[in-house]
């Protein structure tokens, strides 16, 4: 019988080996006699002794109750904090988006130089029905189409 089997049987039949059914009881008794399985309890006792230290439940209770009281108190404060942080974050994000958009327009405007005015004029002419083909010729033609831009 191994220690694992002994533990399994202990779980199955209880701690008192004397109450185990016959075939197991003798085997367990032999195992205890041969290997000293009763040392398990001794080891548990030793571990408990090794873990023992001074504790103060009254002080622990005071600290836990104080923490619970603290948790209650700042609940309103936390709500107030959350109350203004969300709009502030949304406003900040909107402002950032606006700045990024303006910066994008500025950067794009600089890149096109004066050509943007030409595009605007051409698109306006196209919208007014003024020689649509001429307008598109300007974008794709071989002779100076790129120059319009």
């Amino acid at each position: 019988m191994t220690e694992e089997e002994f533990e399994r049987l202990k779980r199955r039949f209880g701690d008192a080996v004397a109450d185990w059914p016959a075939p197991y009881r003798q085997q367990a008794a032999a195992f205890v006699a041969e290997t000293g399985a009763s040392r398990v309890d001794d080891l548990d006792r030793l571990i408990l002794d090794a873990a023992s230290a001074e504790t103060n439940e009254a002080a622990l209770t005071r600290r836990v109750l104080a923490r619970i009281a603290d948790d209650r108190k700042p609940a309103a404060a936390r709500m107030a904090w959350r109350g203004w942080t969300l709009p502030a974050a949304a406003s900040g994000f909107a402002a950032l988006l606006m700045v990024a958009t303006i910066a994008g327009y500025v950067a794009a405007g600089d890149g096109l130089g004066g050509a943007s005015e030409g595009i605007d004029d051409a698109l306006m002419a196209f919208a007014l029905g003024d020689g649509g083909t001429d307008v598109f010729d300007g974008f794709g033609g071989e002779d100076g189409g790129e120059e319009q831009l």
Partner: protein
Amino acid sequence: MSGAGGHETEAGGRHDDDRLILRMAKGDQTALATIIDRHGRGLRLFAARLLGSASDAEDVVQDVFVAAWKHAARFDPAKGRASTWLYRIAANRCIDARRRRSLRAFIGLDAVADEVAGDEPDAEQRVGARQELAIARAGLKALPERQRTALLLRAVADMDVAEIAAVMETSVGSAEQLLVRGRRALRDHMAMAAKTGDNRPGSVS
């Protein structure tokens, strides 16, 4: 054997705890104080030996009771004992605390130092019986965390294998293996220390 923590194997103890948790769910702080009185010491010893740090253990145990207070309504007596529930919270908090400590040590905010009261080998060696305790502590400290957890739940919380498995969220077979291997490793460590007269933490597997 009398466990420092749960040890309410009698139905009365169990039902008392269940009732106390139910009262806590209704906001009864007296019930919380009674639960702390019953299980505070066991949880404190368990966490201190598992973490190897008295201050971390103190924080963990406070967290356990604050969490139990907040979530008392979630406790279901049909699913297990109150002590098993408390120790499961404690085991999880210990894992978190260990991770936080490792992170703090990694980024240099914290020196990794174990400081549990009673870890004074020189003082321990003055008396033979205490020397044995010092060797046992060193052996426990050197065990793999899960083996140590299983042994402490058995010895300190007086849990059976099924309860240990429930706390550690593993199968009964695995919990049994952890207990057997942990005991064997601890015995080996003690036998080795007795031979060499050395009680420093060694490599125990």
